[in-house]
Each structure stands twice: as C-alpha cells, then as structure tokens.
C-alpha cells in the first residue's frame, strides 16, 4: 500500500506541470468537500438536538401554563401557581427558553379571549418577561427593538407607551411601522396622536395597515384632525385626508379647502377628491375662481367633482370646456351637462359638419 502511494507520488512528481497542477487542484477540492460535509453533518446534528430540546421544553411549558391557568383558588393551588411563576422566571433567563416561553404564551393568547387571555397577560407581568422586552427598547440593534415592540403589542402592554413613543422618529422604517401598529392597536384613535410628531414619511403600506386596524373597531369617537391637516409632513396630510373621507369628517371642511393651495399637487388633488366625497358645495366656487391657474390633473379632478356637485348656475362655465383638449375633461363636461340639463332639448345637437369616418379597406385587410 505504502509502495503504491510512493510510486504514485513519484509518478506525479515526474509528470507534466499541468497534470501536477490538476492533481493538486483535485486534492484541494476533495479536502474542501470533506470539510463541508463534516460541517453540514455537524450543523444538522446540532439543529436536530435543538429541535428536540425545543419540543421537550415546549411540551413542558404548555403543561405548566395550563396548570397555572386552571389552578383552584385555595392556598395549595396558589402556592403551586407561584412555583410555576418562579419556574418560568428562572427559565426566562436563558435566551432560547425565553423565546419558547413567549411563543407558548402567544400561541394560546392569540386563540382565546376573556379571563384566560387576561390571566396570560398577568403571567407575562409576573414572570418579568415585560422587563426583558422593555429593556430591549434601548438596544442599539434595530431588529431587537422592532421585535420587542411587536411582543409588547401582542401582549397588549399599554404601560410601555411613554418609552415607545420616544422612538417614533427612529431611522429604521421597520421600527417605526411596529410603533405605529402598537399605538393604533392598543390606543385606537388616541394612538394616532403620533401624527403630531411624526417627521418621517408614512408610506402607503403603513397607511393601509393603520386603516385596516382602525376598521376593526366600531363606534369610535374620531379625534380632532385640524392639527394633522396643517402638518408639514405630506404623508400625514395624505393619511388625514383618507381618514376624513372614510369617517366623513365634515368638521374639517375648512382645513380641507385650505389644502387646495398646498404646494404638493397630489395633496391638492386628494383634497378635491375628499371634498367631492363629502359634498362640500362651497368648494366649487373657490376652485372655479382660479381654475385656469391649476394643473391639468387638478382640472380633471375638478370636473370629476362637477359631475357630482354642479348646479344650473355652473352651466355656462362647464359649456366653455366642451371642446377641451383633454378627453377626461370633455367626458366629464358631457356627463355633467347631461345630468343637469336633462329637460333642455337643445343640449346636444347632431354635428352635421363632422368628418365622415369610413373604414379603410386596405388597413382592414392588412390587419
């Protein structure tokens, strides 16, 4: 065997340099592959062990939680409950175990309501898990902060409000998003007070998420939106306009009309759309006054508004635009005239001078 190896090395040394290079390269690859295989096997074994440990602890924590929740109201049971609290508290010192305990609590809390859900929240306080989450709010790692806020949201910890609101202008949008959800889920419309101090943009997705959360709550008193309507943050204005539209806020009509002169064209258009939805008629005269100084998009939005709100007095103004260059304006003008001059026989006349459109036979064949 040794002789064979010696002969092989000798043959390799005497061979062409290219063959030598290929042989060494192959040897290198074999070593890398073997190292990787050993590493992957080790990794798989470790993951399996971790999985087994997790399954064992999960089972144990589930049993302990059920025992805690359904202990009787006598002295022995209370002692047993305290033992369970201490057990969870001790286990929560370990990162993996803490993660498993929280997952176990949430797994049940998400499925049930009422006094059992409240008891789980109480256990969250008693085991000191709340302290671990609130201490993470000061972490330098943004993902740890975001996870802590999500945990506090799921356990409905209102006490963390003052600490969380301080992070509302956090540089990471993921953290800001978690904070916004925390505030609105737990404090509903009152939670929207963060709009007063929000400096970063509130993305369309964030706005949709917040509106969806608010949509789940019924019979809520909508807060005063005047401040938000005067915000320097364009996204806050956009969101407030959506709120005004969804919750039919006629009380802020003056503020919405004031937005017709906002520097951002999208806000001006959104304001016109909200006015249309709310049916604020005084807006028509205001927009008519400076109609010609407005952008084409605003003019289109204005005529869309006229479809809903035009009065007979507006007919001359509307008729002036019947041959407007823009198709959408022409359509809106015709729709509006058709609606408000329904009894007038001479509203539309057949245009006999119009070009006779005939089908081009060559074009038809070619196509």
């Amino acid at each position, binding site marked *: 065997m040794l002789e064979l190896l010696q002969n092989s090395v000798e043959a390799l040394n005497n061979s062409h340099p290219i063959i030598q290079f290929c042989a060494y390269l192959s040897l290198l690859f074999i070593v890398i592959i073997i190292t990787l295989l050993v590493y992957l096997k080790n990794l798989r074994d470790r993951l399996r062990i971790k999985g087994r440990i997790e399954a064992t602890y999960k089972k144990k924590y*589930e*049993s302990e939680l059920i025992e805690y929740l*359904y202990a009787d109201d006598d002295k022995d049971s209370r002692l047993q409950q305290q033992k369970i609290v201490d057990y969870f508290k001790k286990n929560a010192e370990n990162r993996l175990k803490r993660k498993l305990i929280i997952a176990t609590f949430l797994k049940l809390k*998400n499925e*049930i*309501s009422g006094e*059992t859900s409240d008891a789980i929240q109480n256990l969250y306080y008693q085991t000191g898990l709340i302290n671990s989450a609130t201490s993470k709010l000061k972490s330098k790692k943004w993902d740890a902060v975001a996870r802590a806020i999500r945990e506090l949201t799921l356990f409905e910890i209102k006490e963390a409000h003052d600490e969380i609101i301080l992070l509302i202008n956090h540089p990471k949008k993921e953290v800001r998003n978690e904070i916004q959800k925390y505030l609105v889920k737990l404090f509903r419309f009152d939670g929207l007070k963060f709009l007063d101090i929000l400096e970063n943009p509130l993305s369309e997705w964030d706005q949709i998420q917040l509106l969806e959360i608010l949509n789940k709550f019924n019979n809520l008193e909508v807060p005063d939106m005047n401040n938000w309507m005067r915000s320097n943050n364009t996204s806050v204005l956009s969101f407030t306009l959506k709120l005004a539209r969804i919750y039919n806020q006629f009380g802020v009509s003056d503020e919405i009309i004031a937005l017709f002169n906002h520097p951002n064209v999208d806000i001006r258009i959104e304001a016109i759309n909200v006015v249309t939805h709310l049916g604020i008629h005084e807006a028509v005269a205001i927009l008519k006054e400076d109609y010609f100084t407005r952008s084409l998009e605003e003019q289109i939005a204005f005529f869309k508004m006229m479809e809903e709100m035009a009065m007979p007095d507006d007919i001359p103004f509307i008729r002036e635009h019947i041959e407007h260059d823009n198709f959408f304006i022409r359509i809106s003008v015709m729709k509006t005239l058709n609606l408000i001059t329904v009894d007038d026989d001479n509203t539309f006349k057949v245009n006999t001078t119009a070009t006779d459109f005939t089908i081009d036979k060559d074009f038809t064949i070619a196509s």
Partner: protein
Amino acid sequence: MNLSKKIVLADDNSILAKLLQFKLEKEGYQLLIATNGKEAVNLIEDNRPDMILTDIMMPFISGLEVISHVRNKLEMKTPIVVFSAAGQEEMVLSAFNLGATDFMSKPFSPNELIIRIKRLLQ
C-alpha cells in the same frame, strides 16, 4: 350523565387543545383530540362522538372536508362547531352550507364555548 358524551376536537394548536381538554373534562365530557383533519376523520369513524369541534385550517384535510365527510359519507347528524379566524367569512359560509351547526370566531372565550356545547348537547 355527561361522562358518556364524547366530543372530538380537531385543531392543530396543541396548547388550545390541552386547555379545552382540561375545561371540558372538568365539565364531565370526554374529549378526543385530533391534530389534523385525517386524524379527526379516523376518530369520528371509530368513536361516533356526540359532538365535533373543528378548526377550518388544518394540515392534510381541512375542517370543511371533515364536515363534508361527516354529513355526506358517514351521514351523521352530530352537531359540528367550526372555529374560524378573522378573514375566513367565506369559509364559514361554506361550512354552514356543508352542514355545520354553529361557529365561533377566534379568539374565543372558552367559557362561551362550554355554554354553546351544553346548549347543543341538551
């Protein structure tokens, strides 16, 4: 009297199953737990329970298929209570069309569930 009453629970949430088992056994019912629809069908066929509690979303066989199997293949008139989550309104309607008796939206109160079970088993 309740000891003879068997209830099959089909839900893949192990801790919720444990909690309901504790509660229902305290009330004198016998709870048989299935962690997926396939197990639920087997338990129902083997034990002929007095009531079935089933989640809609489950591995292998969904709650809707369990209801369909009970009503159409086994031709059982056992009361079936369906657990649904938010956003599953369409599925709840399908469950009723297939023959579900009642539904509870998650998160639900275990105490309310007990009351409904008692009422349905009267």
